[in-house]
């Protein structure tokens, strides 16, 4: 089963992992991405393209479900203004086996970063604001899956 959430609300990794575990299997993998403290970051503003975001995330989840033996996939991505240390994204996958759970979780994050229409704007402590640019390493990580 696929669960996709995009919004301003925070999530609880424990609750979400339990929901995935409740759908069968003995292997649950998860990833949480947070706003990184790099010294002088004040906040991150996350913008998205609502009409496309759900569709893009669902397609990624469906690809994972068809390519790995999974019972459940949860993807939660927050938008709006976030401070250092706050949660941004959660991926949870559930399978009978460790390898499928971990690999598919990694696949979903790699694709999400290069396909799902989100944009981050950072504001520094000195007031300077700038849009974060795409990283070549993220593109390479996404392409290595070949799907």
């Amino acid at each position, binding site marked *: 089963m696929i669960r996709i959430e995009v919004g301003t609300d925070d999530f609880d990794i424990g609750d979400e992992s339990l929901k995935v575990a409740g759908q069968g299997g003995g292997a649950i993998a998860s990833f949480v991405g947070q706003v990184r403290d790099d010294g002088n970051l004040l906040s991150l503003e996350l913008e998205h393209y609502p009409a496309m975001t759900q569709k*893009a995330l669902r397609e990624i989840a469906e690809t994972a479900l068809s390519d790995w033996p999974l019972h459940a996939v949860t993807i939660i*991505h927050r938008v709006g203004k976030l401070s250092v240390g706050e949660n941004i994204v959660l991926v949870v996958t559930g399978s009978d086996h460790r390898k499928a759970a971990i690999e598919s979780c990694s696949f979903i994050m790699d694709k999400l*970063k290069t396909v*799902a229409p*989100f944009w981050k*704007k950072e504001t520094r402590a000195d007031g300077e604001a700038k*849009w974060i640019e795409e990283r070549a390493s993220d593109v390479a990580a996404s392409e290595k899956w070949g799907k």
Partner: protein
Amino acid sequence: MDRSITIIYFAWVRERLGIDQEQVNLGEGIETIRDILTMLSERSAAHAEIFAAVEKLRFALDQDYGLPTSLIGSAKELAIFPPVTGG
């Protein structure tokens, strides 16, 4: 018959243009995303400057990724935005 399409902008593309969307009438000979960009480039210096660097942009027709050479077909919405940076 004249068709029209809604162009929507995100992130720095939206900020630099100063608008989040606009309407375009698809006249004779406007068939690809590139044709729309050429037409929009006449609207302002900001449009022209942004659309000249097509490699810095990404496109979606009715919420599916497209390329400058993609045919518009019956799409109702063209989104223009920078490479995505979520996650």
